[in-house]
């Protein structure tokens, strides 16, 4: 199997892992967003709790969860190790004067930092919801489903959480603004005809997804 490990330990191979896991995580964002949109339903969380119960116990979902963890794991590990490798390639002696802002965008250069913010958010987020639901006894609602909705209500009464969630969505936004089309470039999926469309969709995707996620804590804090 040495050719496989060699492929994925080369600089391009690692980038390919970043791209594939990145796009996979984008698809997760879509699923996660669609499900969570039920929070906005005016039924005091009945539908959301049912959805949450389903996600927590369906065997297919539980299996995919492992894939998702691996996706995150690889994306985070490769991202950090590439960042370290790239820093080493740059060398100890930096430029005295460097106007890199004149040839590239801030967010494209800040992927590791933006990703780290998102990672920090992810840990807090898992602790808030996933941890409580999976590892503690949560009160049940009228339908006998675990009352995840109550957890959300509770969490977003805390302005610090609200602020963290909103900031994290900005970090995710900028991460995606570069990451989405960058993944296509890394996979070599570039064509003069289609690449402009990929870029456009990437921008639209990033803005819609992040805005919708950010709307949730704001909605709960101010309107519930």
């Amino acid at each position, binding site marked *: 199997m040495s050719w496989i490990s060699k492929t994925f330990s*080369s600089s391009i191979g690692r980038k390919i892992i970043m791209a594939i896991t990145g796009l996979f995580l984008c698809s997760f964002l879509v699923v996660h967003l669609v499900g969570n949109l039920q929070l906005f339903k005016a039924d005091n969380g009945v539908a959301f709790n049912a959805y949450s119960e389903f996600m927590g116990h369906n065997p297919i979902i539980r299996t995919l969860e492992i894939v998702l963890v691996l996706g995150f794991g690889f994306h985070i590990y490769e991202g950090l190790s590439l960042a370290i490798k790239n820093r080493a390639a*740059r060398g100890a002696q930096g430029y005295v004067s460097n106007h890199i802002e004149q040839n590239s965008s801030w967010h494209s250069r800040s992927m590791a930092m933006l990703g780290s913010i998102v990672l920090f958010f992810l840990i807090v987020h898992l602790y808030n919801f996933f941890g409580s639901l999976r590892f503690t006894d949560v009160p049940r609602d009228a339908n006998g489903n675990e009352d995840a909705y109550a957890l959300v209500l509770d969490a977003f009464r805390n302005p610090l959480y609200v602020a963290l969630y909103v900031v994290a969505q900005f970090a995710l936004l900028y991460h995606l603004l570069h990451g989405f089309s960058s993944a296509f470039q890394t996979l070599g999926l570039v064509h003069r005809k289609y690449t402009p469309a990929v870029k456009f969709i990437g921008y639209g995707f990033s803005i819609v997804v992040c805005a919708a996620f950010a709307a949730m804590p704001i909605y709960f804090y101010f309107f519930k």
Partner: protein
Amino acid sequence: MAGSNPNAKPMNLTLKVWRQKNRITKGGIVDYQVKDISPDMSFLEMLDVLNEDLLRQGQEPVAFDHDCREGICGSCNLFINGRAHGPEQGTTTCQLHMRKFSDGDTITIEPWRATAFPVNKDLSVDRSAFDRIIQAGGYVSINTGGTPDANEIPIPKDISDRAFEAATCIGCGACVASCKNASAMLFVSAKVSQLALLPQGHVERKTRVENMVAQMDLEGFGACTNIGSCAAECPVGISLENIAILNQEFLAAKATSNNLA
């Protein structure tokens, strides 16, 4: 003085130049004043003026690489005011002219920085890593003689033109110097996609990309994060599209080549 603007005023400038005795010793920035610089001078001619002054005073001139001074040999490589080849786009250092600067300016001049490009002396760096990458596979393995007639294989003009555009890389290393990751992907991709586009290069396309990428990694260049600084600073406008082609070639080669190693 002739040139464009007979009324152009000579300039006085402050130069902050990286001086370093050799590969081992530590370097630092040294300040110099240059006077009566004509706006029609090229940037390197301005450095010639500095060096003549230094030599007359018995000091060592600033070492820097340069040769053709026409923007094609790829020797010149200065990081000027925080930009590879200076502030003007699509220009090598030797084709940058002093009319882009103003009287009283301070100009910072540094060598290319990258682990794979160690400093030889002052502003001169070692770019032999690029040669070793080409030696790893940047060629078509044919011997002299015995080749078919040149018109035997027709090549569509647009393909040939794209191959030509990739082939115009001058190997200066501005891509590496300006990349936040010191990645050599633009350089490597220019050669890989030139030969991947042309039928002559098809026979070895898999081994070529595998070997060149392996050598690139061995030399200690960073990985591409698609930020685009390289293409923005490339004096001959090598396109990022080539990097996508390189990625494609690499993936296809790794997935389908018979090489198990």
